[in-house]
């Protein structure tokens, strides 16, 4: 996109639809900011789009769904093709859809990653315990390539699986093994169970195997009813939960879809998602939050650089995503993030995002964009990703006292939060309650930290925050000076002169009698607040605290020629006062009294003997946010 030429309608459209590449979007935005002609067309385009979007929804005629179901039931059912070995009546089931493991189990991918990394490992397991049935079951499904046989031996179920290593299809392999957790004692069993995630299931005939993630060991495993997992026995597995029997009672784990599980897997990193009630509850239990504890979901902005590191004949491209920089080693997201090839089919292009707009994904929207949630420890997964820099948003779930990237959550309520980083404190208003979306509860609240680029080093972060603080303070100083100006002018109306300044001890500085047209310099006096309150409180120079006066905050510096004019000065980021009101200068031709003096700042008044002149350095952010100079205002 060239700055010189106007934007085409297609460029505007793709920009509006957030479909531009990250490299084109800024240029498009900049052009729209600069070119009124294009901006007009863009606005008009947007308006037409919005009108169509706002059209009312259609509604299906009454009885439509009933009719659809009836017509469906009149059709013959689909024939299953599972071979069942006699021994027990088996319900006939259709083949397991090929995509099921993909859609359900990002966690399975972890297993597969392990398989790729250790291609010669043969998996076999024995499960102790009963309850898995009395028969043999054998599945040799041509469609999915799944080969499984399950048979019960006295008091034990044995599963023999034949992972087809090196094959192209993930579905060809299945692994089941029991899970030893040496560290879990009966006393800590419930605590331990909270670290388990039920992330997906596969049906094998009548059996359901559960895909589990163990956050303690970061291991992924698959289990069946009757198996032991650490100190627990799996008593039941169905499509919605896994029930564990432990010494202190039963514990039920809800099924989390693979995507969500992966988010949790990556230790408190979740993407904004349609968290359902049970997931929210699960997060709560995972964090050890009490019912009344607010949970903050902090949205951070990141950029990750995607680099293709190698090509392998089997997997095509092997992609690897590496964040631009680690943030003090504390940022909890990936050091290596991988992209799952399946998700990229038909999505050859990187996801184009205009600046300031970030992908928000739901569980059901597993697109290439959701690569950024993939978890570091699972290391490399097969993937195709173009080289490039990808902006994305990371969500970190935290309670009061937790770390969120570089920040510490000092205080957290369902309306606001205070974060700290070094000497910096930030008060945040919550952007959104998850309750408002019908997901989660009103105590789960979203905070937007996307203003911070999170791939910066600690030093860069410190610098960025310091600059931000300076910018805030400059804005505050200017606003307070406006308020002071109004107060000074009100005072003038009542007293026909401006108030005299005070010294650092609060004592009024006076002009010697008979001396005329002398500018007096000191600080803003308290007579602006009492006895008549031209101001409710005297503001303090936000930069005053770093002057030579120690940590004591200073009032704004103030000079006046009482009958005529005034000057308010904030010392600026350098903390030193440089601007002063000149004493009355004898020259009346309007030129500067001395070289370097700043002539009159209010052009409409012209230069008169009674007008203030300032001399010294003036703060100008174009010299650098941190540059020398004072911020000031003159009047009237």
């Amino acid at each position: 996109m060239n700055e010189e030429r106007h934007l085409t309608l297609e460029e505007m459209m793709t920009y509006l639809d957030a479909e531009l590449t990250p490299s084109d979007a800024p240029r498009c935005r900049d052009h729209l900011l600069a070119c009124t002609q294009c901006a007009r067309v863009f606005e008009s385009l947007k308006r037409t789009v919005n009108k169509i979007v706002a059209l009312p929804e259609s509604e299906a005629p009454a009885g439509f769904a009933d009719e659809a179901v009836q017509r469906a039931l009149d059709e013959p059912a689909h024939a299953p093709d599972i071979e069942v070995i006699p021994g027990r009546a088996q319900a006939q089931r259709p083949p397991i859809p090929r995509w099921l493991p993909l859609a359900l189990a990002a966690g399975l991918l972890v297993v597969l990653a392990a398989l790729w990394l250790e291609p010669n490992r043969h998996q076999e397991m024995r499960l102790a315990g009963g309850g898995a049935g009395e028969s043999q079951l054998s599945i040799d499904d041509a469609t999915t390539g799944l080969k499984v046989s399950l048979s019960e031996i006295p008091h034990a179920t044995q599963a023999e699986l034949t992972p087809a290593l090196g094959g192209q299809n993930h579905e060809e392999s299945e692994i089941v093994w029991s899970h030893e957790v040496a560290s879990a004692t009966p006393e800590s069993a419930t605590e331990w169970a909270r670290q388990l995630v039920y992330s997906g299931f596969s049906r094998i005939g009548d059996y359901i195997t559960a895909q589990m993630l163990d956050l303690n060991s970061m291991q992924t495993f698959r289990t069946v009813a009757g198996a032991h997992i650490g100190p627990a026995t799996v008593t039941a597995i169905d499509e919605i939960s896994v029930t564990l029997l432990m010494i202190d009672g039963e514990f039920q784990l809800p099924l989390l879809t693979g995507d969500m599980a992966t988010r949790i897997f990556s230790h408190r990193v979740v993407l904004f998602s349609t968290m359902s009630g049970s997931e929210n509850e699960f997060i709560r239990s995972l964090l050890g939050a009490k019912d009344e504890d607010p949970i903050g979901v902090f949205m951070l902005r990141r950029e990750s650089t995607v680099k293709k590191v190698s090509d392998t004949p089997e997997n095509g491209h092997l992609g690897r995503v590496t964040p631009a920089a680690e943030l003090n080693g504390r940022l909890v997201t990936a050091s290596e993030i991988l992209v799952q090839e399946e998700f990229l089919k038909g999505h050859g292009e990187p996801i184009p995002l205009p600046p300031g707009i970030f992908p928000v994904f739901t569980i059901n929207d597993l697109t290439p964009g959701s690569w950024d949630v993939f978890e570091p420890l699972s290391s490399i997964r097969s993937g195709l990703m173009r080289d490039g820099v990808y902006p994305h948003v990371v969500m970190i779930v935290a309670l009061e006292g937790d770390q969120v990237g570089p920040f510490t959550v000092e205080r957290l309520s369902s309306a606001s939060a205070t974060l700290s980083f070094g000497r910096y404190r930030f008060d945040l208003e919550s952007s959104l309650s998850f309750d408002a979306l019908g997901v989660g509860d009103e105590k789960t609240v979203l905070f937007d930290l996307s203003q911070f680029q999170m791939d910066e080093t600690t030093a860069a972060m410190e610098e960025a925050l310091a600059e931000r603080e300076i910018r805030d303070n400059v804005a505050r100083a200017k606003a307070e000076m406006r308020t002071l100006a109004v107060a000074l002018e009100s005072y003038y109306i009542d007293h026909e002169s401006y108030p005299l300044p005070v010294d650092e001890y609060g004592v009024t500085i006076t002009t010697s009698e008979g001396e005329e047209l002398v500018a007096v310099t000191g600080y803003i006096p308290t007579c602006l607040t009492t006895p008549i309150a031209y101001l409710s409180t005297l503001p303090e120079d936000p930069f005053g605290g770093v002057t030579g006066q120690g940590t004591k905050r200073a009032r704004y510096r103030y000079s006046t020629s009482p009958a005529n004019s005034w000057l308010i000065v904030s010392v600026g980021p350098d903390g030193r006062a440089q601007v002063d009101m000149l004493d009355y200068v004898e020259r009346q031709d309007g030129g500067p009294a001395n070289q370097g003096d700043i002539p009159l700042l209010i052009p409409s008044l012209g230069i008169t003997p009674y007008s203030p002149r300032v001399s010294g350095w003036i703060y100008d952010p174009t010299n650098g946010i941190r540059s020398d100079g004072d911020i000031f205002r003159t009047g009237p």
Partner: protein
Amino acid sequence: MELAAERSDEALLVDVAEGHAEAFRELVGRYQDRVIGYLRRMAGEESARDLAQDTFLRVWQSAPGFRGDASAKTWIFRIATNAMRDRHRRKGIDPLALAVEPPAGGGESWEPVLVSPGNPFERLAELEQQQILEDAIAQLSAPLRAVLVLSLREGMTYAEIARTLGIAKGTVCSRKVAALAQLNRTLRFLENER
């Protein structure tokens, strides 16, 4: 711990594939308004209901073949599109084929419609505005209309629309721009008419 999270469309489709009528009913419930809305705009009020029934019957029949390489939404809308296509094809035409694609980049012009109290369109009652807009959409050629409706009414991305309609991703944008430009001309015509 509470159970039974709301199931994803894809998970429902697994059950539909297994012949669970309840899952199918749930899926129809989720999609019926949107599918009918799409088909109303594409094929007209009269055919919409029949086509939608056709669509869901095909969903029921084809569910075992759903591979999950597209979202359930894209898949269902692709079926709806094909149902509509097939009906026309019996008459020997593909309603969604364009003889000449709108030119990519710079082919369309856009005169901004004035937004002022004087603009007759803005002065109309909301219902009337909506009717005019619907009529203008109905006048678009089907290929342009399909892109516009899937994009602005269904919120699909270019990639999703490309999959649904079986066209190239680049074509999605040029068709959408052409559709909007044509709508804009209609609105401008109104502005000048009154």
